[in-house]
């Protein structure tokens, strides 16, 4: 599974990246986490506010940083 974190240089983007990494590691999920900071790439996902969480090319969450529980839920729903 490929998880992408969309966002360049905002604090919440860093936070989301960290949280997702933690969730993936602690739940032993087999996934590749990619941080996307090129604005042209980000814009393709139709996101209006960063950060965005993309799982297997689907934008599942944006604007805020979801809780660990929700991140896990999104990963399970979209894997």
């Amino acid at each position, binding site marked *: 599974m490929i998880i992408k974190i969309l966002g360049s240089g905002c604090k919440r983007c860093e936070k989301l990246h960290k949280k997702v990494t933690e969730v993936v590691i602690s739940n032993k999920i087999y996934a590749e986490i990619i941080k996307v900071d090129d*604005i042209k790439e*980000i*814009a*393709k996902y139709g996101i*209006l*506010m*960063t950060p965005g969480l993309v799982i297997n090319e689907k934008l599942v969450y*944006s604007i*805020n940083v979801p809780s660990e529980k929700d991140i896990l839920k999104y990963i399970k729903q979209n894997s």
Partner: protein
Amino acid sequence: MWFVTGLIVIWFLIYFNLERLAVVIYNITGLSSVKDGYARSIEFFIYEVPKVLLLLTIIVFVMGIIRTYFSPEKTRALLEKKSLFLGNILASVLGIFTPFCSCSAVPLFIGFVEAGIPLGVTLSFLIAAPMINEVAVILLFGLFGWKTAVIYVSTGLVIAIISGYIIGKLRLERYVEPWVYEIKSNRKGTGEDKINLQDRIDSGYTAVKDIVGKVWIYIIIGVGVGSFAHGYVPEDFMAGIMGKSNWWAVPLSVLIGIPLYSNAAGIIPIVQVLLEKGASLGTALAFMMAVIGLSLPEAIILKKVLKLPMIFIFFGIVGVGIILTGYIFNLIY
């Protein structure tokens, strides 16, 4: 739910008894026997800091909840197919309520343009959103009274509406990087999760944690600096430089304010000292608007989607709008 209600009741109890609490602290600590500038400063400080922090907490909480009703996606949908002037008004007002962070200015810009929202309307939003933010408004309300807060919000709106309208009329689309128009995004978005009341309240808590957690230190420093000035610096210290009689004070404040970048909480203490010491209201507000509404980092971020002449026109028009506002307020007050 009961928990929130309880917190709000406690909030009201503390807020409306602050003056009494301050007097109690003042007497216990023996400060009432000291009668010089130092004591006056402390007196101001122990009342103002909790007052402003309490106000900030409740408003940020309420705004956090309100913002869950105004996602950027909804705002975009509302702005689609709106005529120019009406669109500018709506965009500016929505700029106040839609969650926004300057780090998202570019994706938002692209998303709006892609949806066919006119350039001028998009820019009205991008002018209003950072300039009219709740932290600025609350601090103005808490420290200078509701009139100053209302003036700030309404002039901010007028500047955003008119600047966006003029930019729209100038037909500057050629100064937008061409790749912006070529992006074909998947506009489905996240397909909005169902969000219940508890989620909204949680958003309120998160907003308080994020915003109040970040700005409290500026407020303490700010009010501290303000109280120091209150007790020590002579009354008309700034009057000569930033008073009404100096016609060049307004444009100069705006020119100094643009490259400076600060969040609203960081700039308020400076504004407070300026006003306290004889700077005129128009000049001080113009300075504040220039600092938080226009900034070099924002220009650099926008440079990714806008060509340089467009950035100059954008900053020029908004800058002129702020200067005019400054003059108007100096005339009225």
